[in-house]
C-alpha cells in the first residue's frame, strides 16, 4: 500500500493532529468525538453551517471550516458517514444562536445519520435544517436508486452559503439559498484508477491499464459504466454534454418542517440548463490527477459550454472533493445569478480555500 501513513487505525487521528498543528489560526479539532470548528469559537448571531461525511475527500469538509465557509465539519472513518453524536456535538459547539444548517450529501448513511443528529439538536431546542445535496447526473432514476449522489456541488454550495451566513442571512434564507443552489447544480465524475483505503490496503476495484470508469461517486466505488480509455476531449465532451443535456430531475427530499415540528418530504424538480445561463464551472481532481490535466479538461469543457450558449462566469479547478489518491476528475456546473456570484466572490479564509482576505 503506497501511502504516507503509520498504522491504518490511527490515520484519521494523526492526520487531524497534523491539520490542527498546521492551521491552529483557523480551526480547532475536537478529538472525542471528531469534529472541527473555527478557531474563534461560534459566530454569534450567524447561522452555523455544518457539513460532514466520510474522510478521504480532503480538503472537504474539514479544510472548508473558516471565515466565509463552514462553521464545523464532522469527519467519519474513511468513506464512512460520521455518526449522530459527532454531528450533535459539532452543532452545539458551532451554534451561535441563529440555528444550524446541516449540508448533507445524499448517501443513505449520511442522510440517516444527519437526520438523527438533527433530531437530537431539535430536542435540545436548537433550530436545525438539513439540506440534502444530490447533483450527480450519472445516477439516472431516483425511483430505483438511493437517488443522485451529492458530489462536487457540495463545495460550491458550502462556499456560497458560507458567505450568505457571514452576510447575516437567517436559517430560513440560507436554507432556501442552499436548496436553490442544489437545484441549479449538476455534476459527473470519472476515474482512471481506483484508490486504496488504509483499512483495506488493496484497491477498491481492479481496472485494466486501458480502462476507465465513468459515472463514479467519491467513495472509490466503481461507476455506472466501464469503458476503454478515451482522449481527454472525448471524455470531457461526454461528461459536459451529459450534464448539459440532463433533463428535468424530480425527487422527494426530506426536510424539517419547523411549524409542524416533523420531517416532511418535499418534491423538488431541477430544471435543465438552458442557453444563456451563467454558471460556475468546477473541474475537480479525484486526488491523484494533477492540475495540469485538469486544465486539459477545462479547455474542452469551456468549448462545449460555449457551443451550448452557457457562459462560465467563475471557475474552480483543483483537488477539492477527492477520493484519496484516485486518478480521475469530475465536472460540476452550477447556474448562478448575480447575487450568487457576489457571494462566491466574497472573502473566504479556510485551510482549503482562500481569497479576498
Amino acid at each position, binding site marked *: 500500500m503506497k501511502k504516507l501513513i503509520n498504522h491504518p487505525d490511527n490515520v484519521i487521528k494523526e492526520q487531524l493532529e497534523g491539520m490542527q498543528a498546521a492551521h491552529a489560526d483557523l480551526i480547532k479539532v475536537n478529538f472525542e468525538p471528531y469534529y472541527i470548528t473555527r478557531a474563534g469559537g461560534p459566530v454569534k448571531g450567524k447561522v452555523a453551517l455544518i457539513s460532514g461525511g466520510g474522510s478521504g475527500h480532503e480538503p472537504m469538509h474539514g479544510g472548508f471550516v473558516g471565515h466565509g465557509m463552514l462553521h464545523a465539519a464532522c469527519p467519519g472513518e*474513511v468513506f*464512512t458517514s460520521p455518526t449522530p453524536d459527532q454531528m450533535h456535538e459539532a452543532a452545539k459547539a458551532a451554534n451561535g444562536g441563529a440555528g444550524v444548517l446541516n449540508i448533507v450529501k445524499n448517501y443513505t448513511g449520511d442522510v440517516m445519520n444527519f437526520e438523527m443528529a438533527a433530531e437530537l439538536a431539535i430536542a435540545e431546542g436548537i433550530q436545525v435544517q438539513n439540506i440534502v445535496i444530490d447533483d450527480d447526473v450519472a445516477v439516472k432514476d431516483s425511483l430505483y436508486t438511493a437517488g443522485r449522489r451529492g458530489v462536487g456541488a457540495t463545495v460550491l454550495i458550502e462556499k456560497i452559503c458560507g458567505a450568505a451566513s457571514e452576510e447575516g442571512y437567517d436559517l430560513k434564507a440560507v436554507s432556501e439559498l442552499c436548496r436553490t443552489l442544489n437545484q441549479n447544480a449538476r455534476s459527473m465524475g470519472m476515474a482512471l484508477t481506483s484508490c486504496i483505503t488504509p483499512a483495506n490496503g488493496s484497491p477498491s476495484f481492479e481496472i485494466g491499464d486501458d480502462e476507465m470508469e465513468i459515472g463514479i461517486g467519491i*467513495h472509490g466505488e466503481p461507476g455506472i459504466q466501464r469503458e476503454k480509455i478515451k482522449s481527454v476531449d472525448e471524455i470531457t465532451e461526454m461528461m459536459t454534454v451529459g450534464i448539459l443535456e440532463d433533463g428535468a430531475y424530480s425527487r422527494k427530499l426530506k426536510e424539517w418542517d419547523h411549524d409542524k415540528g416533523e420531517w416532511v418530504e418535499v418534491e423538488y424538480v431541477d430544471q435543465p440548463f438552458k442557453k444563456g445561463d451563467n454558471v460556475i464551472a468546477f473541474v475537480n481532481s479525484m486526488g491523484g490527477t494533477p492540475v495540469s490535466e485538469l486544465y486539459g479538461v477545462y479547455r474542452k469543457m469551456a468549448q462545449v459550454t460555449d457551443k451550448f450558449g452557457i457562459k462560465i462566469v467563475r471557475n474552480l479547478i483543483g483537488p477539492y472533493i477527492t477520493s484519496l489518491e484516485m486518478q480521475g476528475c469530475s465536472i460540476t456546473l452550477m447556474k448562478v445569478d448575480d447575487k450568487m456570484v457576489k457571494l462566491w466572490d466574497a472573502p473566504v479564509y479556510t485551510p482549503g480555500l482562500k481569497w479576498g482576505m
Partner: protein
Amino acid sequence: MLTKEQVITWLTLCHEVLEENKTWLTQLDTAIGDADHGNNMNRGFKKVYAQLDAIKDKDIGAIFKATAMTLISTVGGASGPLYGTFFLQAGNKLAGKEELTDNDVAIMLRAGLDGVVMRGKAQAGDKTMVDVLIPVTESVEQDINAGTPLAEALAKAVEVAEQGVKDTIPLVAKKGRASYLGERSRGHQDPGATSSRLIIEALFNASR
C-alpha cells in the same frame, strides 16, 4: 426463553463473528459498495463488546438501548443508524425485562425490523439487510405462534436467513450505495444482508 446471560452471549457472539468475517464483509461491500461494511460492523460490535461488562446488570431493554447507542455512535455509514435503530426499537419494546420469553424474541425481531424499515424505507427485494430480516422475522413469528421451541425456531431462522442472503444475489439493488450500480449490482451478495445473517446465527447459537 432467553436469559439475560444468553442475551449477553448473543452480543458477545455478534462481536466474535463480525470480527471473524470482517474481511469477507468488506470484500462483499467492495464489489457493490464502498468497501467498509466489515470494518464498520466490527468497529461497532467491538465497542458493544467492550461495554458489555458495564451494562450487563441492567434490564434487557436497557442493554439493547445501550447497544443501540454504541452502534449509532461508532458504526456510521448506512448500517450504523439501521442496526442502531434495530436495537433501539427492540429495547423500547422490552423495557424492564430481565429475561425474554419465546414470544418476546419474536417481538424483538419485529420491533427491530420495523425500526430498520422506518429508518431506511427499504422494501423486500431492494437487496438490503431487510431481505434477511423480513423472512427471518416472519418465520420466527410463525414458529413461535405454532409453539415451536425457540432454539428450533431460530435454527430454522438461520436457514431462512441464509436463503435470504442467497436471494439477494440475483437482485438489482434499489436502496443504499449498491443501487448506483444498477445492473452491475446483479450477481453480488448484499453485505448488509450477510451481516444480518451472521447476527441471526449468533442469536441461534446463544439460544442453544
